[in-house]
């Protein structure tokens, strides 16, 4: 299987472990990810704040490039990019005038027939029956599936899963032997957009989310979005400074959890790149049947 692929800027830097784990899992599933040639930044959190036109034009160029490269569907691992691309695609479809404007800006034709695939949708296929992959090391932990804002909102545009209390990630987790907890903060915002400029607020929001997950017995938080990961993984000092609480809850990318279950090495999945060590309580809670209990705790191999 060959798919178009839009990494997005953060996967080249702060979220490179997402790239690594994604490619590793894709490789395992025999999916070839073909990068959109000459792709640019989607403008993510910044563009729409200062110029709507820009916020549509930048994703517009990416989509146009994908079309030019003859791609039918494009995998967009970063939720932020996925959201921007999907919204732009929606607005371009709805507004003829805007479409003409953007065509002129990107100096390319645009039809709008590229299908966008987010991380969850892709992994659903990877773990689907047809893929024929089997879970080698069940990820037997209680996990808090954290979707964030960008995968489910705005519902009318994304039409992905249910807007409150989504289930897609929970199902994936069950598939790999994990036990997703029921918790109310799945789609609460972590403060992504203000990550650098208002660290204080980000710490506040992120701490709420961590607290809620820990309180309900989560051993790991599973995320699909680099922004969420950055806030939840890198902002612990700020959180401690703000709340006095110290949280050791590891924040793991969906692809990493799946990768581990598929038997990939922690190195290939870039688990060592997190600031918060990926370790789990000594006695992992038994996964719900039928999955067998985990025989090996992935953390043991964690380096450094």
């Amino acid at each position: 299987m060959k798919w178009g692929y839009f990494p997005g800027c953060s996967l080249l830097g702060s979220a490179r472990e997402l790239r690594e784990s994604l490619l590793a899992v894709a490789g395992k599933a025999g999916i070839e990810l073909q990068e959109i040639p000459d792709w640019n930044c989607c403008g993510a959190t910044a563009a729409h704040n200062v110029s709507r036109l820009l916020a549509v034009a930048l994703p517009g160029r990416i989509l146009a490039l994908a079309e030019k490269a003859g791609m039918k569907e494009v995998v967009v691992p970063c939720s932020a990019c996925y959201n921007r691309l999907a919204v732009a695609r929606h607005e371009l479809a709805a507004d003829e005038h805007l479409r003409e404007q953007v065509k002129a800006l990107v100096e390319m034709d645009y039809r709008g027939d590229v299908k966008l695939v987010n991380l969850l949708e892709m992994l659903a296929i990877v773990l689907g029956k047809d893929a024929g992959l089997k879970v080698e090391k069940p990820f037997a932990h209680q996990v808090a599936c954290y979707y964030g804002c960008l995968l489910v909102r705005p519902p009318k545009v994304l039409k992905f899963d249910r807007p409150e209390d989504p289930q897609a990630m929970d199902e994936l987790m069950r598939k790999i032997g994990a036990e997703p907890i029921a918790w109310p903060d799945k789609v609460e915002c972590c403060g992504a957009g203000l990550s650098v400029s208002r660290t204080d607020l980000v710490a506040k929001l992120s701490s709420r989310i961590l607290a809620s997950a820990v309180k309900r017995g989560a051993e790991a938080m599973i995320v699909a979005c680099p922004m969420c990961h950055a806030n939840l993984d890198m902002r612990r000092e700020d959180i401690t400074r703000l709340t006095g609480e110290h949280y050791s809850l590891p924040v793991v990318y969906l692809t990493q959890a799946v990768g581990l279950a598929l038997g990939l090495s922690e190195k290939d999945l870039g688990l060592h790149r997190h600031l918060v060590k990926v370790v789990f309580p000594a006695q992992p809670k038994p996964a719900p049947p039928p999955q067998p209990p985990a025989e090996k705790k992935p953390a043991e191999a964690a380096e450094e």
Partner: protein
Amino acid sequence: MSRIGVFICHCGENIAGTVDVVKAAQAAAQFPGVVQGAEYKYMCSDPGQSLIKEAIREKKLTGVVVAACSPRMHEPTFRRACAEAGLNPFLCEMANIREHCSWVHEKSEATTRKATELIRIMVEKVKRNKPLYPIKVPVTKTALVLGGGIAGIQAALDVANAGHQVILVEKDPSIGGHMLQLSETFPTLDCSQCILTPRMVEVAQHPNITLYSYSELESVEGFIGNFKVKIRKKARGVDEKLCTGCGICSQKCPKKKIPSEFDAGLGKRTAIYVPCPQAIPNKPVIDRANCTYYLKGKCKACEKFCPRQAIRFDQKDELVEAEVGAIVAATGFDILQTRDFPEYGYGQSQDIINGLQFERLASASGPTLGAIKRPSDGKEPETVVFIACAGSRDQAKGIPYCSKICCMYTAKHAMLYKHKVHHGKAYVFYMDIRAGGKMYEEFVRRAIEEDGVIYVRGRVSRIYEEDGKLVVKGADTLLGAQPVEIRADLVVLATAMVANPDAEALAQKLRVSYDPYHFLSEAHPKLRPVETNTGGIFLAGACQAPKDIPEAVAQASGAAAKVSALFSSSELSREPVIAVVNRTAPPIFSTCTACFLCEKVCPYQAIEREEIKDRKGNVLKVAAKVNQGLCQGCGTCVALCRVKAIDLQGFSNEQVYAEMMAV
């Protein structure tokens, strides 16, 4: 040479505001065949009508065009006026220059021009109108009432007490409807069952009322005064004549854990059951979807223990046919369920309930015998949050309308809770308090001032569970939209009132129109609130729009009055808008070629075959003939007739083509 009079109504400012009526009148006066073009402030008023009458007498008018509102509104008025002046009422037509012109266009030349053209069109039509005479049809003096809720009960009793026969059809095992589920009723707080059950008994015992419970309307044919209906009596599994309602069967039934519809899922019932002790009729039904015998092929405990051998497992649905002259639809409403609210947890928490469920909690006959206990653990809630407008006035949920009763019953719920749990706290989240009604506003104030219910103005954004509490995240817009967080033990959603799931199907059976929300439509929003566009079919209660009990009862009595009026004479006269087959002089007799395409397409089987014979009785020709009683005047046959031998009175080819040419 025709002498047409044109009368243009200002309708105050409604028409004159955008249409230059004087100009239009002058223009109309110039149309060929028009001998008078008049305009007046209110044509429908008495002086307005006399203006027309005088003109008819003095100017010897052969036709009248009234340019005013929609004919659906005032055509009868003006036709009556003409008749009073000695002009055949069917020589009067209306040009709709209000709804179709002045109200929908800006004041402009073009609008006046349009009005003038609409008038010309009607002038051309009326020139070709022929005097027609109403058709008399017999009336079957039996009424069919659909729905045994308070509206249906009221309508049935009123018609029956007027001395006419009534057939009352209820889809559930017992009559009583939602009102029977209520605890107490606002604003008087009198017990709902105490005021309703006597009425139910009256229905059961009334000599003029035939009750079909656990039955549904299968089909309707015919027309006003002469409907033929089929009613499906669903198989009860019990011989009603033998059964005494002793209740042993339910006691013995092993299936005891089925959520009770009557208790809105909070209580349990058996597979063979009566919805509640006050049920009318007090005869059980077997719920085949849950009965062990139907599922596994054995059990029959009820049959074993029934002292009267009244159980009938092999009973089949029964189709009853009846002839009725009028139908009253009183099929009531439904409400949204808590699962319809993503932001409030998709109904996953047992302690988030809807209004009807709270009624059952508060009702002395309910699962908790009137004690307020939360469903999850049976504890008495210390803090209860009531949320008004749950789904109502919510464009995003497709319900932009106000459900009308929630403000009042929420105040009532909060009040009842405070009466039962004195130390408890009751919060009500609301957007507006709509308490229009006798003693309603006073009632709400009482809840706030005397019973200490706390009202918070704002919508709740989210509810989630934490440490066995329900965290309710709202805002108080009166505090500058500051976030407000309440940790509650029980949350009651005043969920929106919606049409029944099968409302659309019913409307199609009855051939009445319905609104986008599937509430059945009245004939006129103000002046004909209980009639539908289909003659002989009337509306009562919440099947038409959200209503509280007094309103439903009032409308039911209104509908009953309409039925009684219809039944007051043994004949009724129908508009002669029907098809006719033309006649010509011998030897042709009629241009009809006897292809009988008309016969095939007629939805009323109104086309008959007529043999035209000579004196000796030899058949000279067979031609189509229209049965005046059956024809409803849809005109489908006219459009299909290849030789144009059949035509529609009032909308004849000549008339319609003339209209079209005048455009």
